[in-house]
């Protein structure tokens, strides 16, 4: 579903991503972990078609980025650490806006479904300005799944959430993944991804230094694995 080949990204004279090879099969849930500054957000933005590669190729669902980005966008759902929501509109109005932007038919029904999925049906008429960080994040996920995308990209979605909100988020993430979607999630915290991901890749200083299937490794030994991968890089 996702094919990245020798991806390089430079900002001016600084090289952030140095030749990344990365692929995700349909339905896989891949967690991309790495320390701050490794290039996770940059990488995800390129996958999301928000940024262009300097060199290398990126293919999603068979379409090449950035040339065929327009075809890819309707199949992508993105949750970044910024909410991408309008504070002065209600939750429902925000979703209605995005439904229009994505050209969805039967928007009303879909909006209700999504709000129920993330547990915000009761607060649909409230201004986003009044939402806590946890609720905002859930609404952001609702926004991202609104158009039922095949591929979902999450950029450190647990940032700034307390324990309860995190658990709720995890439940939602599981349900999102359960529908057979392809998911790539970045994080710098190992604890967040156990139980969710089927594969873990380690990104350090612009390259992928290690990759492991979750089925082949004990959850307890993951921290050691991570530390070793970083040390060897």
């Amino acid at each position, binding site marked *: 579903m996702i094919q990245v080949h020798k991806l390089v990204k430079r*900002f*001016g*004279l*600084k*090289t952030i991503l140095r030749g990344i090879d990365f692929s995700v099969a349909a339905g896989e849930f891949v967690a991309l972990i790495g320390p701050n500054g490794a290039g996770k957000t940059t990488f995800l933005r390129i996958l999301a078609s928000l940024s262009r590669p300097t060199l290398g190729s990126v293919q999603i669902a068979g379409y090449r980025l950035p040339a065929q980005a327009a075809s890819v966008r309707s199949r992508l759902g993105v949750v970044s650490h910024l909410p991408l929501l309008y504070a002065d509109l209600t939750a429902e109005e925000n979703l209605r806006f995005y439904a229009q932007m994505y050209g969805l038919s039967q928007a009303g029904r879909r909006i209700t479904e999504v709000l129920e999925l993330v547990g915000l049906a009761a607060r649909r008429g409230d201004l986003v300005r009044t939402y806590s960080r946890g609720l905002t994040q859930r609404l952001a996920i609702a926004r991202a799944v609104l158009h039922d995308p095949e591929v979902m990209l999450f950029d450190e979605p647990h940032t700034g959430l307390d324990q309860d909100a995190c658990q709720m988020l995890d439940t939602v993430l599981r349900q999102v993944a359960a529908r057979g979607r392809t998911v790539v999630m970045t994080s710098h915290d190992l604890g967040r991804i156990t139980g969710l991901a089927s594969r873990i890749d380690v990104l350090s200083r612009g390259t992928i230094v290690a990759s492991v299937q979750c089925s082949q490794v004990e959850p307890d030994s993951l921290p050691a694995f991570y530390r070793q991968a970083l040390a060897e890089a």
Partner: protein
Amino acid sequence: MESRPRALTILDIATILLFIIAVGLVFFYAPMEAVMGQVQRVFYFHVANAWVGMLGFLVAAIAGVAFLRTSNRKWDIVGLAAIEISFVFFFIAIASGSIWARGSWGTWWTWDPRLTTSAIVELVYAAYFMLRQGIEDPDRRARFGAVYAVLSFISVPITFISIRIFRTIHPVILGIGSAGAEGSFDMTPKMLLTFMFSLLTFSFVFADLLWHRIRLGSLADQAENLKMKVLE
């Protein structure tokens, strides 16, 4: 590090020579103008500077389009260099224009289309520099600079035309009503020669400075690159 190419050194020498000759022509060869006297000699440098300044603006606009299409950093350096140099040229044009106005009509400023447009171009350039200064990311800085160079290159001629129309309906050199207000005069062959030579000289000066400035920009980039490599 590459050393200065021979062609550039030759250009340097040629430019200096031309400039000396041009100054000589302006002060010793060209005849004194009947009405305005010595002050009129400013004219030769004034117009040459303005025309070459406009050339710089054109170069920057073309470099802007080229950068947007190719994303090649080299075009950004060219665009920035052209505008920096053009900025100075227009400044000289305005200053000399001001001296001419003072000498001819006793005012430091005339609101005629060309002088006013030159002033507006200077403001555009100032805006260009401020825009670039406010951006960290080099790629975005180059892109936005290119866009602004193109937009302003389209807008400035329209501005000139609108001031022109403004002037034909309401002539506005305050305090002067004579037909000589535009400051035109007939040029004798000697004056024409001096004028054309000045134009040639300043084109050389522009090309020379531009080449140097582009080299400077490239070298700075290379130095930055090496610094990055060392720091890793």
